[in-house]
C-alpha cells in the first residue's frame, strides 16, 4: 500500500540523495504544470487565508462582508476566546495518538514479524487493516455513535455489570471523541510501523538474546529504535489530521458542544455565521501550532526524510 512510501520505501531512501546528474529543460517541463497547480491552489489560498485573517468588519455594518485591513486584534481575540478549544484539540489529538500507537504498534509487530512465516495470513491481516479505508469514514463514525449510544450494546453491558451508573453516557463526552479519533487513525498508525518492522532483520533481535538481554531490553534497545521511522510517520499521520478534525467532535457524531475542537469553531465561523476573519485566524493559529510541534518532534526523533 502506498502509505508505506510515507514511512520510507526500501530503495527510495538510498536513491533520494544520489543527486541525479542530468540537467535538462525537460525537468522544467515536467515540474512546471504540477508546481504551478500547487502554487495556484495551495500557496495562493494560504496567502488568501492570511489576508482574510487580518480583515476588519465592513464599516457599513453588513453581516458577512469584510474589508481588507491589518487587524492584529483578530488574533488576540481568537486566542482569548477560543483557547479552551485550542487546548482541547491538542489534548484530544495527543490522547488519540497515544491510544492509536498502543493499539497500532503491537498490531503492526504481530503482522510484520510474527506472521512472516505465514504469507497468506499476513496478506489477509493487512487487507483487514486497510479495510476501513474502503468504507466511508463518516459512516464508520456514525456506526460508533450507534454502538456507544445511550441504548446501544456497550453502555447497556457496562451498566448491567454496574461498572457505570444508570445515568452515564458515552456519546457526547471527551472519552467518545478521543476514542473515535484514535479509531479513525489506527490504520494510518499501523501501516508505516508495519512497513519498517516488515524489513526488520531478526538476527539483530537474536543477537540481543545471545547477549543475555531480557526480551523487554531487546525490544527497547533494538526493535523499537529500528522501527522509529515508522513510528514517526505513523504518529504524524495520526496527530496532524486528528488535531484538525471536526467530525468526531461534532454533536451529530460522537461529541457535544462541550467537546468542540478548533475544527468545529473554524467550520461554524466559516460556513454558518460567515465570520471569515475569525475562521481564518484560527486556521493560521492551528497551522502554526502544528508546524511548530512537528518541527520540534522531527528534530528530536532524528528523522529527516519525510517525502
Amino acid at each position, binding site marked *: *500500500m*502506498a502509505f508505506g*512510501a*510515507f514511512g520510507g*520505501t526500501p530503495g*527510495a531512501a538510498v*536513491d533520494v540523495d544520489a543527486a*541525479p546528474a*542530468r*540537467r535538462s529543460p525537460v525537468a522544467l517541463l*515536467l*515540474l512546471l*504544470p*504540477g*508546481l504551478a497547480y*500547487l502554487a495556484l*491552489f*495551495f*500557496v*495562493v*489560498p494560504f496567502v488568501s*487565508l492570511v*489576508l*482574510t485573517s487580518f480583515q476588519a468588519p465592513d464599516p457599513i455594518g453588513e453581516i458577512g462582508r469584510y474589508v481588507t485591513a491589518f487587524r492584529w486584534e483578530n488574533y488576540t481575540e481568537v486566542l482569548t476566546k477560543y483557547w479552551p478549544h485550542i487546548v482541547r484539540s491538542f489534548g484530544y489529538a495527543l490522547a488519540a495518538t497515544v491510544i492509536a500507537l498502543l*493499539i*497500532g504498534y503491537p*498490531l503492526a509487530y*504481530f503482522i510484520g*514479524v510474527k506472521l512472516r512465516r505465514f504469507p497468506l495470513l499476513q496478506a489477509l491481516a493487512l*487487507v*483487514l*487493516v486497510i*479495510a*476501513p*479505508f*474502503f*468504507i466511508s469514514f*463518516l*459512516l464508520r463514525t*456514525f*456506526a460508533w455513535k450507534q*454502538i456507544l*449510544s445511550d441504548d446501544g450494546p456497550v453502555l447497556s453491558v457496562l451498566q448491567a455489570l454496574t461498572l457505570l451508573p444508570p445515568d452515564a453516557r458515552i456519546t457526547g463526552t471527551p472519552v467518545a471523541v478521543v476514542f473515535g479519533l484514535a479509531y479513525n487513525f*489506527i490504520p494510518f498508525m499501523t501501516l508505516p510501523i508495519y512497513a519498517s518492522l516488515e524489513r526488520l532483520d*531478526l538476527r539483530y*533481535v*537474536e543477537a540481543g538474546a545471545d547477549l543475555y538481554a531480557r526480551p523487554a531490553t531487546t525490544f527497547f534497545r533494538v526493535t523499537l529504535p529500528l522501527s522509529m521511522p515508522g513510528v514517526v510517520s505513523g504518529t504524524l499521520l495520526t496527530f*496532524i489530521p486528528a488535531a*484538525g478534525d471536526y*467530525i468526531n467532535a461534532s454533536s*451529530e457524531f460522537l461529541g457535544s458542544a462541550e467537546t468542540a475542537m478548533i*475544527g468545529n469553531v473554524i*467550520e461554524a465561523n466559516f460556513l454558518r455565521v460567515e465570520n471569515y476573519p475569525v475562521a*481564518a485566524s484560527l486556521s*493560521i493559529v*492551528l*497551522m502554526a501550532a*502544528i508546524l511548530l510541534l*512537528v518541527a520540534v518532534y522531527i528534530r528530536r526523533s532524528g528523522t529527516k526524510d519525510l*517525502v
Partner: protein
Amino acid sequence: MNRGVRFGVGSWGLAIYAILGLVLLLTPIVYTIAFSFNDSVKSNIVWRGFTWQNWATICTVENGAVCNAFGTSILVGVVATLAATALGTAIAIALVRYRFRFRSATTLLIFLPMATPEVVLGAGLAAQFLAAGVPKGVGTIILAHTMFCISFVVVTVRARVSTLDPAIEEAGRDLYASPWQVWWRVTFPLLLPGIVAAALLSFALSFDDFIITNFNAGAASTFPKYIYTAAARGIPAQANVIATAVFLLAIALVVGSQLLSAARRKRLARMT
C-alpha cells in the same frame, strides 16, 4: 531454529491483542453493512428486521439524493484522479531523474499539503474562491481534490521511479527510439504499477474526503457530504447500501490483485 518467531506465552498474548485490534477495526464496518439490510423507516438507528428492499431503492429514496451524491463523488474522483496522477507523475520523474535548482523548495511544496490539516486547506481554498468571486460547486470540489491528491501521487510514484534502472531507458535510446517511444514503450509500462497504485490512492482519498469538500462544495453534494447533512435527521439505509457495495468491490479488487501478483511470482519462480 529462529528464536525471534517462536510462539511462546508472550506471543499468544500478542496474537490475542492483535486479533482484538482487528476486531475493533472491523466492528463499525460490520455494523454499517448489517444496517444496509435494516427494515428501517426514515432514520436507520434501531434494528427492525432483515430486508433486501433498501438495495432496490437506492436511486428512488429522497428523490434520488443518495444516488446523485454518489454520482457526483464518482465524477469528482475520476476527474481529480486523472489530473492529479498526470501532474504528480511528471513531478515524481523530474525529482528522481533530473538535477535542478530549488529542489528542496520543491520537496517542501510537495510535503506541506500533506502536513496541513484539512480544515486549513479547505478554509484557504474557500477564502480564495470567495475573494476571486468564483461560485462554489462541483468544479471547485474537483480543483480542491486535485490539489491534495498531487502530493500523494508524487510520493507513491517517486518510490517506483527510484527503483527503475536508467540503463533500460538508455538501451531504448541506443536502439534509436525517439524520446516519445522510450516513454510509452519502456518507462511508462515499467512505472505502471506505481502509477496505478497512486491513482487508486487518489481516488480513495477523493471519494472519502469530507472536510475540504464541505468548505468548497456550495450547494453541490458528494456522498460524504450527503451523509454529514443527513446525520442530523437520520441517515437512510440506502447510504449504507452504497457504502457496502463500494466496500465489497474494493475488497474484491484488493484480494484479486494480491492473488494475481502471488500467481505471477509463483510463475516467475518456476521459470528461474
